[in-house]
């Protein structure tokens, strides 16, 4: 009996390198996976938290150009409509959530900062005639966040420089925060701000945001035809040589044609009158 056991022990001992080899082989797969992840990190996408910090800086810069409209009841209402559509978007949660605010400007405009802070001007709010139209505008901006259009406007060369500077040297300089990283952050904010406020996103990004808005509106129970109505009003208000929204977005007429083709022809959803009533009470008062 004891000789059997001794043999078993010897067998296990003999098999040990092989078994550890198997474990090590599993480990190698794991190493490869970890190594792969790190290789990806060398050219990784921006993380949700980095997107959030870029978005905060972009929002801070927009607010140094457009004053924040201090109207708690209106801000609360815009947030309620905004949250209602954001939760039905393909990206219902961002790093620190969606936040909506009103800018004290007569200009017709709206901005989606990376990470989920969304601004709408008083001018655009006044152009909307109902909650469904406001929801359509906010859903368009939410789609820019979903599609990461702001973050994608950071130049590839700059982002490449960001991650190549994230080496040990940058970490060593951490005591004073690697200055290069701050400069690259600053440049990234410039890239996003220029796209958002000066040049606008690509036409394809705007058309995608319109299509996203129609889908989100439907998913939330709002009228999918509301976006077309707002676009028609925006087009009607356009003055020759107008800047702002008119400069950063494709012509409303072109967008209108696409949106009309995409939106299903359905009867207005239930309770639209109730929604319009509360919109009138808060926004138009």
């Amino acid at each position, binding site marked *: 009996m004891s000789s059997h056991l001794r043999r078993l022990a010897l067998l296990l001992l003999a098999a040990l390198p092989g078994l550890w080899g198997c474990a090590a082989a599993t480990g190698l*797969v794991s190493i490869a996976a970890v190594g792969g992840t790190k290789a990806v990190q060398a050219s990784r996408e921006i993380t949700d938290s980095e997107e959030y910090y870029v978005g905060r800086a972009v929002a801070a810069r927009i607010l140094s150009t457009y004053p924040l409209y201090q109207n708690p009841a209106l801000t609360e209402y815009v947030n309620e409509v905004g949250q209602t559509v954001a939760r039905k978007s393909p990206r219902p949660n961002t790093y620190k959530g969606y936040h909506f605010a009103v800018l004290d400007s007569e200009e017709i405009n709206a901005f989606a900062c990376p990470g989920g802070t969304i601004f709408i001007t008083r001018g655009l709010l006044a152009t909307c005639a109902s909650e469904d139209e406001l929801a359509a505008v906010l859903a368009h901006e939410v789609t820019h966040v979903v599609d990461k259009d702001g973050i994608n406007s950071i130049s590839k060369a700059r982002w490449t420089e960001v991650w190549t500077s994230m080496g040990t040297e940058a970490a060593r300089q*951490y005591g004073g925060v690697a200055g290069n990283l701050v400069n690259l952050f600053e440049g990234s904010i410039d890239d996003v701000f220029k796209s958002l406020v000066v040049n606008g996103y690509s036409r394809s990004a705007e058309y995608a945001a319109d299509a996203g808005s129609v889908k989100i509106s439907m998913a939330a129970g709002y009228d999918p035809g509301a976006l077309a109505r707002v676009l028609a009003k925006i087009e009607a208000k356009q003055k020759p040589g107008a800047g702002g929204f008119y400069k950063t977005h494709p012509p409303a007429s072109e967008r209108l044609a696409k949106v009309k083709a995409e939106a299903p022809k359905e009867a207005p959803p239930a*309770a639209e009158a109730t929604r319009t009533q509360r919109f009138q009470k808060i926004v138009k008062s």
Partner: protein
Amino acid sequence: MNRPILFRRPGPWFLALALLALLLLPGIAMAETMKVGQPNQSLYPDPDFGSAPVASVPVGAVVTVLQQSGDWYQVEYQGQRGWLNRQAFPAPAASSGFNPLGLLTGAPVKETSSDEVALAGKGFTPEVESSYQQKHPEAKYGEVDQVEAQQVAAAKLQAFISEGGLKP
């Protein structure tokens, strides 16, 4: 006279059991701990942002990782099980060492404390934002904080949705 049993030469049973224990050790030690490196992290019942969070996990909290599925880690924190998104754990440093146990078990590689220091200098962090703020005093960060402080309570949103005849 027989020697006391404790002083006997290790028998084959002992050798076999010791070897088996050695082989099983990595499996036993699979659960690893990781430190949450980002603020405002929530524990979700499922690996999906769509589910309502069951608890919040503060930055610096040490959680026991039970398994990984894509971008999600099933963890145990203060006796509660749930899922944390990968964003809770900032990207590892390129120069990080590895934990041999983690490599053998396929478990997440835990960062060493020196890596944690290195991580602080990676990417766009609150520290980078702070330096940017000093460089740009005109940027209205105070108002951004005000905008971010605006919250709609879940119950209030549900009432708003319901009143407006919208989809829950």
